[in-house]
């Protein structure tokens, strides 16, 4: 059974009907893992025995008559999301043996529905980045071109067929860029739709938990399962009385897609061509295309980094060797703090913490942070304004192909890769990355952005686009 060529629904049905047991399916999946992962560096931990036990438990529940909608579906989990059996490294070598006492809400819900966690996936230093280049375990290679980064290891796992779903965090765009670079679909949901309980978020204002899968249909199959109120995450209070889905009629002729011409100021020519082709294909399928202005993309990216760094400096404060993390060897308390924090936080996390503290310092707060919070408001209103005239917006996901594994790129080059994702994060709106085309046989994705709780419309449009291509 090749997981890339089927759907979550079909596989779960096969398990429920007894065509294959969950244990057999996971056994095959784990055997394939080693081969498919060769040279890619996808995993921080593979479940092994635990995955087999989970699968046996699923088979047992099926025997008891339970209709599990995700029976036996192999899932990977980004390593900043807690899973109470495998280590949760948070992207720091200091936590490589940390077993969390809790399991993230989204993972818990998938497991309750019959999914089986087969491993934890690689991530940047303390989850900060969209390349995995700053991972203490080394970067994850792209399954399409092994000399480039995958963007996210979960997307690489889905693209290779190691698993059917990846549960991942997305703050400035890691999930979306990974999906774009690996040629798969990735959904960042509306603020409050999916509980972040069990996520180690470095910037809580923008961190969300989403799903990556080989197709939009597969994401649709799990969206309802992971969505909804969770008293352990106050942001989900918007779903306390149920989710008011914002579903647009499925006919393409009823849907207007906003097309921001301002992106051309920043896109490399070859990516511009792919984006224009995607627009033409949507038009060819009957969607109305409306040119719009999004004039604050660059400034939105910069505002995102000011706020994200300020929040990181605060959220990293707990990693002091006493509350969290190994205690560094030192002769006095002062040195112990310095030593512990230097060991826990890698270079990227140290840079972000230090810059974030600087931005919040006297004189800098008003100049940088307050200005950034105003830009945040302006970007949000700009997106809301664009969606008054359109049902959805289309945006590139990345402004360039994935970065080479070897070679120099400055921290600002890497931060700038979030140009089209970070402003969407500011908006709080849901965004779906879908494959848009290829450059030299390398996949390139694009984002569909919609109003709050329009995920099902995004997935319908994305799915129709996949089938027509």
């Amino acid at each position: 059974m090749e997981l890339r060529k089927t759907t979550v629904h079909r596989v779960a049905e096969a398990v429920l009907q007894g065509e294959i047991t969950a244990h057999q399916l996971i056994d095959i999946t784990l055997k394939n893992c080693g081969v498919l992962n060769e040279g890619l560096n996808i995993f921080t931990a593979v479940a092994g025995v635990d995955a087999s036990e989970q699968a046996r438990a699923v088979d047992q529940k099926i025997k008891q008559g339970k209709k599990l909608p995700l029976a036996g579906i192999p899932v990977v989990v980004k390593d900043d999301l807690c899973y109470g059996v495998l280590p949760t490294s948070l992207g720091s070598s200091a936590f490589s043996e940390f077993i969390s006492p809790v399991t993230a809400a989204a993972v818990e819900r998938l497991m309750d529905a019959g999914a089986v966690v087969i491993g934890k996936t690689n991530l940047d230093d303390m989850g900060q980045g969209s390349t995995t280049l700053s991972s203490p375990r080394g970067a994850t290679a792209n399954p399409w071109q092994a000399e480039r980064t995958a963007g996210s290891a979960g997307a690489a796992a889905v693209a290779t067929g190691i698993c059917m779903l990846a549960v991942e965090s997305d703050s400035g765009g890691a999930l979306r860029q990974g999906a774009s670079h690996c040629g798969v679909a990735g959904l960042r949901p509306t603020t409050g739709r999916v509980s972040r309980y069990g996520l180690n978020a470095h910037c809580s204002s923008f961190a969300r938990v989403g799903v990556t899968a080989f197709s939009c249909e597969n994401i649709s199959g799990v969206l309802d399962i992971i969505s909804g109120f969770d008293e352990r995450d106050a942001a989900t209070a918007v779903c306390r009385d149920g989710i008011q889905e914002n579903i647009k009629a499925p006919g393409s002729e009823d849907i207007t897609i906003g097309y921001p011409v301002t992106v051309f100021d920043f896109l490399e020519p070859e990516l511009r061509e792919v984006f224009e082709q995607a627009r033409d294909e949507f038009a060819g399928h009957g969607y109305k295309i409306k040119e719009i202005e999004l004039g604050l993309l660059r400034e939105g990216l910069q505002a995102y980094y000011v706020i994200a760094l300020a929040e990181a400096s605060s959220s990293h404060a707990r990693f002091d060797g006493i509350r969290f993390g190994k205690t560094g060897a030192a002769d006095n308390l002062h040195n112990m703090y310095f030593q512990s924090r230097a060991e826990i936080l890698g270079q990227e996390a140290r840079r972000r913490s230090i810059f974030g503290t600087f931005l919040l310092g006297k004189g800098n707060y008003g100049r940088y942070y307050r200005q950034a919070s105003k830009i945040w408001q302006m970007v949000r209103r700009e997106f809301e304004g664009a969606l008054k005239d359109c049902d959805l917006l289309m945006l590139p996901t990345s402004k360039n192909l994935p970065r080479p594994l070897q070679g120099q790129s400055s921290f600002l080059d890497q931060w700038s890769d979030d140009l089209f994702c970070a402003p969407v994060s500011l908006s709080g709106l849901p965004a779906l990355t879908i494959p848009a085309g290829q450059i030299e046989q390398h996949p390139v994705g694009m984002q569909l952005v919609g109003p709050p709780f329009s995920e099902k419309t995004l997935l319908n449009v994305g799915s129709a686009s996949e089938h027509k291509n």
Partner: protein
Amino acid sequence: MDDRSAGLDKAIEAIKIGVSDPERNQLHIELDQFLDWLEPMLGVDTGDQEGLLFSHDAVNVLREDSPRQSDPAEIQEAAPSFAGGFYLVPKIME
């Protein structure tokens, strides 16, 4: 030492992160690059725009205040170290 450099050193001291001298020097260079990179954002006329502090509009999201049972054994199990009825932590008093 200019304001930026002094501010950076103060930030490093404030958040207690050990950095080597070469890393500190590199951070000074990178901070200049970063702040220059932010210039376009600073140039935006935000007028009397109010800043945004939360990414959603939800208010009063506290859960109902109701008593619940907790399981001390579960908490003890999750603690890094527990002995004689106490949670053991690194010594911080000198």
